[in-house]
């Protein structure tokens, strides 16, 4: 659970201490930096500076992808909000983190990364001994199959599914209207992808192999949004896909990501 305490912004301490708190950043006084630990802190609280920082917002699918991986791995991190409305992601200092001007970006010590799927892969590799395994251990063959399904999510599923999420959900938030013809066309493409998933999941517990991997995790944010819309029927009408969606969305780490949106 998260222990939230008011505190002043502290300059980086010369030594590491342990603490969970709500730190306020002077430049974003309306949106505090959120520091999270996945486990309860023992009392009395001590002070820590997380070495992992995520620059993003809990609503963003790409940010959620990274948060899911961090929670699966039980890693401490600091979520630093980016003021999207003010266009902060298209300006410095954010552009120094991601010159493409997109959230999220991640800092781990002096390593800076962007592209959510490269970030999750780094988390899975660097912290392979911590928390849940997000890649199947094994030989080149197993790794290769995982890469196949990672690419399937990125190249076949996401381009279609995220456009549907944009039409059905995000357009409304920006004062635009859903285009039903576009939704219909996109859903026509998505069902062909989901039919292939149905066949795959009849032979394999999860997409890449019989364990939960990044290949499954990467789907969570967009599926989460689509399951809150009429598009959920496409997933629910395919028994193996339906079962897989239930399994992956029921994971405790995922529940923590969804919780962040409610704050």
């Amino acid at each position, binding site marked *: 659970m998260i222990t939230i305490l008011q505190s002043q912004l502290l300059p980086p301490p010369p030594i590491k201490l342990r603490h969970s708190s709500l730190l306020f950043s002077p430049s974003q006084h309306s949106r505090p930096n959120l520091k999270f630990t996945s486990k309860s802190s023992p009392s009395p609280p001590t002070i820590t500076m997380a070495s992992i920082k995520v620059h993003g917002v809990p609503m963003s699918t790409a940010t959620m992808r990274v948060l899911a991986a961090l929670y699966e791995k039980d890693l401490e991190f600091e979520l630093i909000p980016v003021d999207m409305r003010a266009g902060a992601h298209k300006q410095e200092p954010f552009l120094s983190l991601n010159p493409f001007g997109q959230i999220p970006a991640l800092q781990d010590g002096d390593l800076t990364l962007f*592209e959510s799927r490269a970030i999750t892969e780094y988390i899975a*590799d660097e912290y392979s001994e911590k928390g849940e395994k997000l890649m199947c251990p094994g030989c080149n063959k197993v790794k290769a199959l995982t890469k*196949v399904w990672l*690419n399937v999510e990125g190249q076949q599923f996401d381009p279609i599914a995220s456009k549907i999420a944009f039409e059905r959900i995000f357009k409304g938030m920006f004062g635009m209207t859903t285009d039903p013809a576009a939704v219909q066309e996109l859903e026509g493409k998505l069902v062909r992808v989901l039919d*292939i998933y149905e066949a*795959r999941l009849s032979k394999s517990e999860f997409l890449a192999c019989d364990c939960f991997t990044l290949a499954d995790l990467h789907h969570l944010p967009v599926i989460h949004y689509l399951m809150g819309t009429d598009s959920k029927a496409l997933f629910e009408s395919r028994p193996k896909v339906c079962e897989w969606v239930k399994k992956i969305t029921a994971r405790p780490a995922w529940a923590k990501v969804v919780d962040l949106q409610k704050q």
Partner: protein
Amino acid sequence: MAGIKVFGHAASISTRRVLLTLHEKNLDFELVHVDLKDGEHKTESFLSHNPFGKVPAFEDGDLKLFESRAITQYIAHRYEGQGTNLLQPDSKNLAQYAIMAMGMQVEAHQFDPLASKLAWEHVFKLIYGLTTDQAVVAEEEAKLAKVLDVYEARLKEFKYLAGDTFTLTDLHHIPAVQYLLETPTKKLFTERPHVNKWVAEITKRPASQKILQ
């Protein structure tokens, strides 16, 4: 030994990504031609290689793969000791690997969607007897220009996209770049000096020449 087989089309951007990797590694392989014009990629026989009905598909002995970027990564790791090193110089350094992986995502999500659309408009449409839509070209070129501005800044600092050596990150760009150099879109590359230099380096490699034959 069953050997390496690529099921694809010698002119296809995705197939070429895999062929490049095999040539860089000096690996023997068989290219099994898939007749895209005839719709062979949508037949049951091909779908058993790639249920998404897209070229290329790949076999190495009893390992079957699809998705060109998964195949190239498999080859780069499996045959790490052979031919050109396509990974970072220290393949165990996870931070370095992450930087290469980040570059591969940039190619897949920022560069390729635009470059492929432009190649479709300028080159492949004509093969199918269709006409280039100049409005689409203008729109996609404007977006690609912004992406290449980021590349220009990056290539000022480093010789290649993931550092100072040629890696998969650079290789993944080559097939689309080669097509675009034959079109008016070429100017976007040539008018940026560091991008221009990088393009010249990666396209003059012997493997890059081989896939054009």
